[in-house]
């Protein structure tokens, strides 16, 4: 065996040893992470997904220009009542734009005025949804979290199926509010209300 190969062999052994040591460190770190995640609120993961979906709903929806106050007005996602997203949504919309409009997240306590909100999220804690929806007027995409949300006149509602976040759609409601939902959106919905 020539000296060059001897050196190579020795180097390779050194690399292997170093790799194993690093792997051990990584595994211990991952184990720690897993514990922390498990310990963390499972709800926060769910709302991270819902925040992403909420943003994506806006991306698959077309508003009439009358839904905005002005041509350069931002597209506002309003959260009625309690905010379950814990600031995740604000992080997500940073740097995003839809059809040339900037995005904004608004926390509102009561019924929004016309042309203020283009997306309105009503969480589980929200009461008297039917009335709120009935008084809302056109140009607002309504998103809820309850199975009953669509029956009460909502357009999209999140559902959890096999621990996966999905959604149902009521295109008729969106249609009557002057909104156009992309067929692509409908194609990935769990159910589409007829």
């Amino acid at each position, binding site marked *: 065996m020539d000296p060059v190969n001897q050196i190579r062999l020795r180097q390779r052994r050194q690399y292997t040893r170093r790799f194993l040591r690093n792997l051990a460190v990584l595994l211990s770190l991952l184990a720690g992470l897993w514990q922390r995640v498990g310990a963390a609120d499972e709800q926060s993961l769910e709302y991270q*997904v819902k925040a992403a*979906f909420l943003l*994506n709903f806006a*991306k*698959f929806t077309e508003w009439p220009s009358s839904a905005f106050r002005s041509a350069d007005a931002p597209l506002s996602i309003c959260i009625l009542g309690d905010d379950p997203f814990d600031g995740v949504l604000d992080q997500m919309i940073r740097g*995003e*734009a*839809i*059809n040339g409009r900037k995005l904004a997240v608004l926390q509102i306590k009561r019924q929004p005025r016309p042309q203020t909100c283009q997306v309105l999220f009503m969480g589980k804690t929200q009461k008297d949804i039917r009335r709120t929806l009935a008084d809302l007027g056109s140009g607002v995409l309504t998103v809820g979290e309850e199975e009953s949300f669509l029956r009460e006149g909502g357009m999209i509602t999140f559902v959890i199926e096999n621990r*996966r*976040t*999905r*959604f149902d759609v009521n295109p008729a409601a969106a249609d009557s509010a002057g909104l156009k939902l*992309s067929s*692509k*959106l409908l*194609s*990935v919905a769990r159910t589409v209300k007829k």
Partner: protein
Amino acid sequence: MVNRRRSSLWSFRDLPIARKLLITLLATLTAALVLSGAGILIADSLLFRGYLQNDFDTLAQIVADNTTAPLAFNDPRAAAETLAALKARTHLVIACIYRVNGTLFATYRRPDALYGCPSSAAQPPTERAGGDQTISRPILLTGRRIGTLVLRYDLAQIAERRALYGAMVLGMLLASSIIAVLLSSRLRAIIAMPIAQLVNATRAVADTADYGIRVQKLSEDELGSLVDRFNEMLSVIQSRDDHLTTALRDLETALSEAEKARKRFHFMAESMPQKIFTAEPSGNIDYFNQQWTEFTGLSFEQIQNWGWTQFIHPDDLEENIRLWQQSIATGEPFHLQHRFRRADGVYRWHLSRAHAMRDAQGKISMWIGSNTEIHEQKEKEEELRRANDDLQQFAYSASHDLQEPIRNVAVYSEVVARRYSKVLDAEGQKFLGFLTEGGRRLATLVDDLLAYTRAGAVEGLPGTVNAGSVLQQTLATLGEAIRENHAIVTADPLPEVHIGEAHLQQVFQNLIGNALKYRNEDSPRIHISATNQGAAWRFAVEDNGIGIDPQYKEKIFGVFKRLHREQKYGGTGIGLAICQRVVERYGGRIWVDSAPGKGAIFYFTLPHLAPQARSTATDSSAG
């Protein structure tokens, strides 16, 4: 390599035309089809590769567009369903959708695919199927990348198309080959057949030399005109052949005629007593008859061409050669008297003549000559001349010697008549008168005789004299007789002539004297004139006298010939004889044209020829 190609080319060159046509057709077709097939194939491969790429780009765009929602809403099943629809595209091998973080989201795999999607978008596409093409596209939602689509497709379509095109080209090649074979048999009838006919006709003409053969014309194209030209050529050759045959026959006939003529001529020449020769236009003598070889004792070979000069007398040779060359140069007849040496060494006189024979164009074709032996004639002439000379000498000396005693007779008879007339009686005086008269006449007669003999002698070399001035002198001499007779003498302008002045004066004096003498009751009218006859001047002396009976026309020029009694017309009767002698001495002639009572015209000619040359010829004939 080069040799083989040349040999294959040569063998192609030697093939029959029909085979050449077939091969050419097939080669052209194959080349055209293969080249166009290959061109189409290459172009199509390039174009189709681009087309495929475009096609799959479009497909990728559609798929990416259709998978935005599944990606956005984290629905791999929906994405997989979308991808599953791609199975209609049989050349798509795999389709992979990756999330924005690179993890695999959804896949499609053709059942027979040899590989699947890499588990990470960062992983390079597998290299196992080298011909497969990869398209990678970002999946965008509102300008933001939410994932990546990777498509891989194979290029089996290109191979399929290649196979299809190849099969088409092969099929067309096969079909066109069949057409080419069919066409070539047709072409054979159209092109090769007429050529074969021409070849056969050429061979037949060459074998049989029958120029009546004609080739049938099958078309109006170049081959047709070739056949026409060939037929024209044959007819030209045919007519030439006919002409040639005729000309050959004519030539043979002419040659045999010429041969016959030559034989006839030679036979004639051999049978003649004279010596005969022929010469080429250049003067080379190419024939002597037998009389020659017998006479000279030399063979033909010895005397042909210029060999004859050896038997010519040395004194004659120079002139002989000069005259012969002059004749050859000018074509004038050759004429000479000269001496040939006989076999026994004796020279004999011959008269040689040669004339040029000319062809239709006037060109000299040969000389024909004859040589007549004139030796004895020549000797006789010589004797005669000597006798004549003697006679003349005698006549001259006789008349000269007679002058003195006759003058004495005349003088003394006059003396007696003057001094002794008283002594003599009447009868004595009468006899004395007869004596005186006789003496006077005798003196005149002797004078005339002397003049006559002198007229034959040449007085040196005569130059030219003006006949007009000679006539004037003559008229002056005759002046008294002219006045007594009241004669009128007129003359035209007269030329210069070659003659001794005294001789011409003798002629004029005798002729004009006769005209004055033989007059009738009318006063004499005499006219002298001269006309140019080309070779000589002809003089005429015309009068209105008593004329001459035609029966005496010749007689009057004899010596002492008189037609009248002396009592009526005086004279010795020698004048015209003197005229004739003078004129003939200079090569001329004298004659008379007359009738009784109608006057007379005496003519005499004097040649233009210089007496010098004539005298030379005369000398040689005399010598």
